[in-house]
């Protein structure tokens, strides 16, 4: 069936080229049927890509090793779920996955916004198509997932660290995030091409940006948890280039989601918003390039390939075209208003934007520095953890504080008296928290203490906002507390969903500060019966077992764990020896204390033939708050993402008021 896959991708390429050429011609010449035809081509491309994806999935599930891709990324013994995850685990498959999401998102975005932004869509379609042409060209010409060969008896298998349930979801979310950023980019470029630089492109893409941003955030958290439980080095984020690659577009999109409010409320930052969308999209492409080109050493780069130059050329072309268009439209992008005061909500959002962008560009510099240093000095110099941690504190701590300040200041300008009243309680709570934590010994890490104090400040502002809002809704006749609370959420989902997301970031910050600034580590080589201590914990090495699973031999050391006089049961840590892949992986042992959020984390670094094991043990306070923050983040994102029928009606009404015809 490889022929069907190849043919389907060829059809996709043809349709994408048609949508690009016909779409551009229709927009330029003002031809209605041609524009509809181009939109249909985009939808059809989505269908043909789906067919190609189906062919590859079937080959993976059936272990059809006549497909080179299947033979390279899976084996007969690989469990079914990982055969499926191999679809996005290898280079060619992941590019096809990109294309499938891209065409589906493009077709859906066009369909959902047809009722009120048709004139804008006409110009967005060729942009979607241009991106689709690039990716379909890659999978047809450069890296086809349907290359065939004489089928070997078995495949090469999958990298052991990828054989983890998180790999079923983490890459999907990341790709949804990367590709989802194409939608705001296409509409932003469409608005520049058409000269319709009114706020419709923002409204058309706001939810898409939020969706892509939420998906990227969830993908990164899943990836962090995967690294924590699977990679086995004792952490969850290592400032690895590929981790940074996902973080950078997320930071740019975060900045955009804040600055877009300034444009909506005050008509300002029009050029800035387009630049942020462009940056987020270019960084999403750069992220895919980093992951797939193998240009940088990373624990996540599973491929070495020749697609790098293609990506770089496409990124350069995208940036050049976008900036040229932006420059041409500058006169139309003049803002009708100006910043009235440095103490106002828009100013706070602007500071937030500058800090986010500074952090994003600092990370970008850290990522490209090894490449640049190698090009200039012939030696790749890697900027280590200290570099990133330093800038995270410099930019991240003020950002944390601004999360509490920004939403509570008035638009336009705020008086000193007003600020004193608004921030009286949050400041008091923060100061008390800081003093209490200092007394409890949190002063061993000043950045950690500052993070906790700021977190207390922000959480208080959020709680106060919900309490005051609920009380106001009750006064407006919303009935009970629960009814008023629900009414508050549903009447302004973006605002209160945003607060929930802010709460998740605060919880995340507390988790990161606790687990990185206040953690402890102990190492020991133990024989059976030996014990070691860390903090209040005592671990006794009890036994070493070996068992055979379907695709690996599992070696596990069992440790008895106690805390003071309390027996906490046993913990297993060890290694898996993968037969087909001929590789070893660390399988860590984790004991979570759900009350304190603390983890006891055990790595069996080295298992000797005589049964001696070299253990490395961590105690990570509050680390589970990071994963809890993920759930809160999802909740906040869902609240903010929920469709707003009133807004849709208002937009359609506005379009009809200027005589934009309904879509056919």
């Amino acid at each position: 069936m490889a022929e069907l896959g190849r043919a389907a991708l060829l059809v996709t390429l043809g349709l994408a080229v048609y949508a690009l050429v016909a779409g551009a011609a229709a927009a330029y010449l003002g031809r209605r049927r041609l524009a509809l035809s181009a939109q249909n081509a985009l939808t059809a491309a989505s269908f043909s890509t789906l067919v190609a994806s189906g062919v590859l999935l079937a080959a993976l599930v059936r272990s059809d090793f006549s497909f080179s891709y299947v033979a390279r990324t899976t084996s007969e013994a690989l469990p079914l779920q990982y055969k499926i995850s191999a679809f996005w685990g290898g280079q060619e498959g992941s590019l096809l996955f990109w294309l499938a999401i891209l065409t589906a998102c493009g077709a859906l975005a066009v369909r959902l916004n047809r009722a009120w932004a048709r004139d804008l869509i006409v110009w967005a379609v060729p942009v979607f198509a241009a991106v689709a042409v690039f990716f379909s060209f890659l999978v047809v010409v450069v890296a086809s997932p349907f290359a065939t060969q004489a089928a070997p008896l078995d495949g090469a298998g999958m990298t052991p660290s990828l054989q983890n349930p998180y790999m079923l979801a983490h890459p999907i979310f990341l790709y949804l995030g990367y590709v989802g950023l194409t939608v705001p980019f296409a509409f932003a470029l469409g608005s520049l091409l058409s000269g319709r630089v009114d706020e419709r492109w923002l409204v058309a893409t706001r939810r898409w940006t939020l969706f892509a941003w939420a998906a990227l955030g969830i993908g990164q958290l899943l990836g962090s948890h995967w690294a924590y439980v699977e990679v086995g080095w004792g952490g969850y984020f290592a400032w690895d280039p590929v981790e940074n690659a996902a973080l950078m577009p997320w930071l740019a999109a975060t900045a955009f989601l804040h600055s877009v409010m300034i444009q909506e409320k005050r008509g300002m930052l029009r050029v800035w918003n387009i630049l942020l969308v462009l940056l987020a999209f270019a960084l999403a492409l750069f992220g895919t390039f980093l992951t797939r080109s193998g240009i940088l050493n990373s624990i996540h780069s599973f491929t070495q390939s020749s697609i790098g130059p293609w990506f770089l050329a496409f990124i350069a072309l995208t940036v050049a075209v976008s900036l040229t268009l932006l420059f041409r439209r500058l006169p139309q992008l003049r803002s009708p208003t100006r910043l009235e005061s440095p103490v106002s909500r828009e100013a706070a959002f602007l500071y937030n934007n500058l800090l986010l962008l500074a952090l994003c560009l600092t990370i970008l510099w850290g990522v490209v520095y090894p490449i640049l240093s190698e090009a200039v000095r012939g030696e790749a110099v890697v900027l280590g953890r200290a570099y990133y941690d330093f800038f995270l504190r410099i930019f991240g701590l003020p950002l944390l504080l601004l999360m509490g300040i920004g939403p509570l200041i008035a638009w336009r300008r705020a008086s000193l008296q007003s600020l004193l009243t608004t921030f009286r309680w949050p400041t008091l709570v923060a100061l008390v928290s800081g003093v209490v934590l200092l007394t409890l010994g949190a002063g061993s890490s000043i950045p950690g203490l500052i993070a906790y104090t700021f977190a207390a400040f922000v959480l208080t502002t959020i709680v106060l906002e919900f309490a005051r809002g609920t009380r106001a809704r009750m006064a407006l006749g919303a009935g009970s507390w629960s009814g008023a609370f629900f009414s508050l959420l549903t009447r302004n989902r973006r605002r209160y969903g945003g607060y929930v997301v802010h709460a998740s970031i605060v919880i995340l910050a507390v988790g990161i500060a606790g687990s990185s600034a206040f953690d402890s580590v102990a190492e020991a080589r133990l024989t059976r019966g030996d014990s070691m201590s860390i903090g209040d914990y005592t671990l006794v090495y009890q036994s070493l077992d070996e068992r055979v699973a379907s695709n690996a031999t599992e070696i596990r050391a069992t440790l008895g764990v106690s805390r003071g006089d309390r027996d906490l049961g046993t913990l297993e840590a060890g290694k898996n020896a993968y037969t087909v892949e001929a590789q070893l992986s660390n399988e860590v042992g984790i004991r979570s204390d759900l009350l304190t959020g603390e983890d006891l984390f055990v790595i069996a670094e080295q298992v000797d033939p005589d049964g001696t094991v070299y253990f490395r043990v961590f105690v990570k306070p509050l680390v589970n708050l990071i994963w809890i923050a993920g759930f809160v983040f999802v909740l906040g994102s869902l609240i903010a993402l929920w469709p707003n029928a009133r807004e849709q009606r208002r937009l359609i009404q506005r379009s009809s008021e200027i005589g934009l015809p309904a879509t056919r």
Partner: protein
Amino acid sequence: MTLALVLAALLAVVCVVAVAFPFIREPEPESDSLHDLNDDERRRLELLEERDRALAALKELEFDHRTGTISDEDYRALLGPLRRDAANALRALEPDRAGTPPDKPETREGRPTGGRT
């Protein structure tokens, strides 16, 4: 192999029909031109956005004042300009309904707005 080629041909045909569908459905349409906004319509769209922006800002200010997030002092200072902005946008839209082009709204200082961000 044969089945794959048949399926591929079928897929290609379906896609071609989908692409050609607008022309098949309307072989000889009354008008094939896209509606393009003229300068007046664009100006009107901008005014509608300004109107909606001002009204939404007023609504938010009222609610923030009610919750206590905005103090009385700030509320009084902001209410007037916001009302003026909303009134300006509404006034600028009015003449258009009588068939004349809308005015350019004025800022609080009475000058036309401008400036690049």
